[in-house]
């Protein structure tokens, strides 16, 4: 990586530098205003006892020390979030890709299906969703009735059981696969039909076409969706906030829900900022690792980024 960069340095052209920064400048302006300055401020807060109402006083690394030494809830929330991300990411991606493939065929009514499959993502985390999910997975819900019809009587419903509640939350995450599906769909549309035609002329079987053409051509999108879902998985908030509010017994308490409570309900903004930056580091580690691996498996028609 380093060698590449220093090698490239000499190749920068003045004209390119100017063009690059001109094209980037609108984003850069917004970045400094809406992201960079707030980030610096929040890093500053993370070293203070800021509670939103007081005059922030610098307390050194105390917040960070508290996170790693005494905070049991932090550990619980981290565990929940890891489990959520580990299950959600592959499930949602596989499902999204499967449905996208299904919808990339030539059938009647595709527009309708596309719309319907996208609805869960539109409807998001409203009360309607929370009530309906309870209706399915709650103690008077469909699943419980089904189980008892088969003679399986449970003391707790899937949502009320500390061991299974998170699974329901993950399922809800998978259910909202619409965005990933659309991105896959867009990528599938971008694959030149000529590639398929020549493969078909050569007599290739459909599974072979899938693995030799579709998947490699999709790798940039798979990579994108993978990174995106990992980031979103670690930042999960709405699902556990709306459906279970972290319960029962913190079994669905996500990391961001916890830091939200710290910030606004417990008046512990400094600490919450520290939690946020710990999370950023965790996500960044995963992202960097993935970016490092992409040369091995992601296929760019443009020939990579150098």
């Amino acid at each position: 990586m380093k060698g590449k960069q220093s090698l490239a340095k000499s190749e920068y052209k003045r004209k390119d530098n100017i063009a690059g920064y001109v094209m980037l400048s609108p984003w850069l302006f917004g970045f400094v205003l809406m992201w960079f300055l707030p980030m610096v401020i929040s890093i500053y807060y993370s070293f203070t006892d800021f509670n939103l109402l007081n005059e922030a006083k610098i307390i050194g690394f105390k917040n960070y020390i508290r996170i790693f030494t005494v905070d049991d809830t932090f550990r619980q929330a981290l565990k929940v979030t890891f489990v959520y991300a580990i299950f959600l990411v592959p499930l949602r991606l596989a499902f999204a890709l499967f449905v996208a493939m299904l919808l990339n065929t030539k059938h009647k009514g595709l527009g309708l299906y596309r719309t319907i499959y996208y609805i869960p993502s539109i409807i998001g985390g409203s009360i309607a969703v929370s009530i309906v999910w309870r209706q399915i997975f709650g103690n008077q819900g469909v699943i419980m009735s089904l189980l008892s019809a088969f003679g399986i009587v449970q003391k707790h419903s899937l949502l009320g059981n500390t061991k299974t509640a998170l699974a329901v939350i993950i399922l809800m995450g998978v259910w909202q696969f619409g965005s990933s599906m659309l991105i896959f769909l867009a990528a599938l549309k971008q694959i030149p039909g000529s590639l398929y035609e020549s493969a078909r002329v050569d007599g290739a079987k459909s599974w072979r076409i899938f693995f030799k053409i579709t998947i490699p051509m999709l790798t940039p999108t798979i990579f994108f969706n993978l990174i995106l879902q990992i980031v979103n998985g670690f930042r999960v908030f709405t699902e556990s906030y709306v459906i279970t509010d972290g319960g029962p017994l913190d079994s669905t308490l996500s990391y961001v829900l916890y830091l939200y409570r710290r910030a606004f309900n417990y008046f512990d903004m400094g600490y919450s900022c520290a939690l946020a930056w710990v999370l950023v580091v965790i996500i960044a580690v995963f992202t960097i690792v993935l970016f490092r691996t992409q040369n091995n498996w992601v296929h760019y028609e443009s020939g990579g980024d150098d």
Partner: protein
Amino acid sequence: MVGMKKNKLNSVLFHFLSCTVGILMFYPLLWLFASSMKSNETMFKDAYSLIPEVFDIATNYQSAWEGVGGVSFLAFLGNTVFVTVLGMAGCVIISLFAAYAFTRIKFKGSKFWFSCVMVTMMIPSQVMVVPQYIILKKLNLIDTRVALALPWFFGTAFFIFMLVQFFRGVPKDLDEAAEIDGCGRISILFRILVPVVKPALVTASIFAFYWIWQDFFQPLIFMSTPSKYTLSLALNMFLDPNAYNNYGGLFAMSVLSLLPTLIFFIIFQRYLVDGIAMDGIKG
């Protein structure tokens, strides 16, 4: 003959599968719609039923139309449209420029700035909102509609990263050929790249539309005058767990506020179909 039969079977299977999954997807919306027709008094007596025991469509939708907090539904709608259109336009265009710079121009610091893009995606917005509030206040933008579009207007990490990935899927010989023909960067971007990544742009616009449309947390913090509220804030004004709540009006307004997103999606999703791909250009 056999082939046709197989096709038909395929089709039936396809529709059966799609419908089953579809009902699961559709159900909450159906529930919401049904509840928006129930009378407030019986709303929760038959909460789990899709067919209202007592219909009260007129009251609910009238109350939704009249709005909340002395502001009408149309005013909320107007605010939401303003913020969404402004935010979406800026977001898509500026992200497009940034993505182009990151993938097609070799400039100093591009890797650094790209990692900055990625970091903005990782930081939880819950801790960004207070500093953002302080900055917007310095700029005298608190409690303005512009403040709601601002976090989107200058592009977001999601779109930049997505378009970067799509651009990288487009062979460079396409734009190199155009460059030899004497095209400038802007015309390469708009004449060569944009048509190829059109499905991605449509997708981006769809996302941007509904994300800004239902954006809740930042608007909640930034706004304090109801006449400038967006629909998601208006919906929030209905509920106080310790008071008598007008759920009928709330659900009716939810339905009304979902409609534009749905319509927008239905209109634009057809452009996903004719992703022209690179054939035309290559061939």
